[in-house]
């Protein structure tokens, strides 16, 4: 059937679509089409309107003007059900899962296999879930586990499995690799290729250029809700795409280091948390960026949580500026000058129902007071400062964070923590889901902070980022630090090997 459709035109087409939220234009007169059996990349800065476009195709939003055509006929998607019926499946940016239900059920909810009696067929459901996850190479993932206990990456996989389970003709993926480590990205890209080969169309959103060039047939760029253009991938190169996205040229090289490492800011001696992380020892100096690499579940986040006092160490010693400290809670950590930008901004980083100002004030409540009372002036000033410093795209400090795009939300988290004037900054996936422009800004900022003497511990699943930004690299595997590299020794091969081999060579830390 793929053959016929390829002749007859686009599988899905959007014509002149506009959408505004409470007066803010998210999309203006955008036309977009997906051909059968192609991978169509959708690019744009944070807040450019990618997710909005996708939600319209998924039936979650209704366009204000414009129309949607499926196989050439105009359709109205009043709800996601209509989109499913039209053969469109979506992997959303904020993972839309059911935490208390099992993996298998999450994959099949809403279209579970039925028995001849019309009741749900759990056996078939669990079997097919297993098959789908095996296709995705997630053999270790237990289908009877509740999703609540899974990592972000594993949840992402479930979302993808769910889209696969729909046998859709168009699969939309909104930043599917944002939460994935390198190896998983490769697996996902294989799956995308397999799907394309079977005639499925894919709309693919990512901020990662290499993926775009490796996968896409065509690419569409949005900027500020406007369509900038749609091109064959062969007709563009990276700098051209970036220029289209940001409207200017961006230096995509990682900024060079300025200044030298100073005294030791943070030192861990044989720190363990239950059996989750064991015998972690390393030191972090002022003025350096220490990269922490590892696979999903290797314990990097847990290490950060222990340093930050969420899961206080059960053994070992933590020293700050050479003095042993007891970090029993996040507030203790904060008062010791530690800031932590968490990996899951939706649930850990932000209060999305509150304003930017409220969020920025959150970690600084005691400082933003006059006497016993909050000082509204100071709160606003702090928020304005953050908006300017990070170029947060917002109407102002009083905008509700929920209304911001993913990348801009992340900048609010950064703003909140830098407002505490920390001396040690832990950044867990600091640029996850952040566009090239903003990403470069954040990298530049990290460098600047380091040059000013900030000690930065960066956790990232993007190997190029780890290698590009870190002055030293630590590699974690199964809850332990298994390798440490100087900048010169940190080659992709060496770090990758340490990440994946459980009995990796243990060079001195």
């Amino acid at each position, binding site marked *: 059937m793929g053959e016929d459709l390829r002749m007859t035109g686009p599988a899905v087409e959007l014509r002149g679509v506009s959408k505004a939220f409470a007066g803010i234009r998210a999309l203006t007169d955008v036309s977009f089409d997906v051909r059968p059996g192609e991978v169509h990349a959708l690019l744009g800065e944070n807040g450019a309107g990618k997710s909005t476009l996708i939600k319209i195709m998924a039936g979650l939003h209704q366009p204000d003007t414009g129309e949607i055509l499926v196989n050439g006929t105009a359709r109205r998607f009043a709800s996601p059900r209509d989109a*499913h019926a039209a053969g469109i499946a979506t992997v959303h940016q904020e993972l*839309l899962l059911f935490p*208390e239900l099992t993996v298998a059920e999450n994959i099949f909810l809403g279209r579970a296999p039925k*028995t001849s009696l019309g009741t749900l067929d759990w056996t078939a459901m*669990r079997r097919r879930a297993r098959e789908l996850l095996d296709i995705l190479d997630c053999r270790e993932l237990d289908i*009877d586990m509740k999703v609540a206990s899974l990592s972000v990456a594993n949840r992402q996989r479930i979302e993808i499995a769910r889209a696969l389970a729909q046998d859709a003709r168009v699969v939309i993926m909104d930043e599917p690799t944002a939460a994935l480590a390198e190896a998983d990205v490769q697996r996902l890209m294989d799956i995308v290729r397999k799907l394309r080969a079977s005639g499925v169309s894919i709309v693919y959103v990512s901020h990662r250029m290499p993926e775009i060039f490796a996968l896409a047939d065509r690419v569409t760029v949005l900027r500020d809700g406007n369509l900038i253009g749609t091109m064959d991938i062969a007709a563009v190169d990276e700098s051209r795409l970036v220029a289209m996205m940001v409207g200017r040229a961006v230096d995509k090289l990682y900024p060079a280091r300025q200044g030298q490492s100073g005294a030791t800011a943070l030192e861990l001696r044989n720190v363990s948390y239950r059996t989750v992380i064991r015998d972690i020892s390393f030191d972090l100096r002022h003025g350096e960026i220490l990269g922490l690499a590892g696979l999903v579940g290797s314990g990097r986040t847990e290490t950060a949580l222990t340093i930050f006092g969420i899961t206080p160490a059960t053994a070992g010693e933590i020293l700050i500026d050479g003095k042993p400290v007891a970090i029993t809670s996040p507030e203790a950590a904060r008062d010791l000058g530690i800031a932590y930008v968490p990996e899951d901004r939706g649930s850990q980083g932000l209060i999305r129902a509150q304003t930017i100002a409220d969020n920025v004030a959150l970690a600084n409540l005691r400082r933003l007071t006059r006497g016993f009372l909050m000082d509204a002036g100071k709160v606003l000033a702090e928020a304005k400062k953050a908006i300017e410093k990070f170029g947060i795209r917002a109407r102002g400090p009083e905008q509700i964070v929920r209304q911001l795009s993913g990348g801009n939300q992340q900048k609010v988290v950064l703003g909140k923590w830098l407002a505490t004037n920390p001396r040690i900054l832990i950044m867990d996936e600091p640029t996850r889901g952040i566009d090239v422009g903003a990403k470069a800004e954040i990298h530049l900022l990290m460098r600047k902070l380091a040059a000013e003497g900030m000690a930065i511990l960066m956790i990232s699943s993007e190997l190029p980022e780890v290698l590009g930004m870190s002055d030293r690299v630590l590699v974690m595997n199964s809850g332990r630090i298994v390798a440490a590299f100087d900048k010169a020794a940190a080659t992709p091969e060496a770090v990758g090997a340490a990440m994946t081999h459980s009995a990796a060579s243990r060079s001195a830390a």
Partner: protein
Amino acid sequence: MTASTAAAAPIGRSNLQRFVGGYGQEIVVLLSIVALFVVVGAINPRFLSDTNINSIFAGNAYIAVAAIGMTMLIISGHIDVSVGSLIGVIATIAGTLAVSGYPIWVAWLVPILFGIAVNAGVGALVAYMRIPSIVVTLGMLSILKGGLISATGGEWITDMPPGFMIAQMRLFGIPSAVYFMVILTILAALFMRYTAFGRAIYAVGGNMEAARAAGLNPERTVVGVFALHGLFAGIAGILFATQLQVIQSTVPPNLELTVITASVIGGVSILGGTGTVIGSTLAAILFACIGSALIFLNVSAYWLRAVLGLMILATVLADMIRRRRVL
């Protein structure tokens, strides 16, 4: 159950593991009941007499039945604090119809339909107008309670036809209320596990936005689950009305708290998305057992409520500790 036992082990965890993992709280409650029977039975064997067991089960069956609907409602992320008043109103309507000479099936059916209709209305306000269910039902609590007294003046209903007294009928020596409790629990459990609508209730309670994205219609699901809750409240009301020769025509005191407590102790998460109807029925039985056991153990009635409170705390804490270990 039969279907899943057929599933081969390598697909997921072992069946036993899954069972214990999935029914932790139910097992805790069941063991509490068993322990209670063993201990109290050892102290006073009359506790285990068939008449006493019959009384424990039959006398509180209506609470278990109401708790089934409440559990579904809580799983969907909502709550109904007016259920006690509703049961009072339903019982009064049933009794009034029965003594007014309507056919008995009318006296049984109309109040149940009333319960469904009222709750579907509440559900519509909750789902489409986005008013939190606790607010609407707090309002309904006042309306039903005040309305009932205004309408009846608290006049007791007596002299109901014998055929109407369905809760008192017996089969093989066991009161019909017990059959209602057991059969409805099993049906509801199967419904919740093996129908698309049942799973939609879990989904909507777990994550409303995700449910919408998965192609469900959360609003319709919410109205549906409220209507279902109305159905169970209706049946509970009929059992309640036909248990004794008189109907008090007032709102049974604290019934809503008892019903909600049964659901909650049965393992339904007040945050929505988890729980089973088997748990709530077991919890309702546990309460009935405790009430009876306290009398048997000569616990001074003054301390009854304190003991009940402690039992609830103990059950919940046991569950919390268990969960912490599992995680």
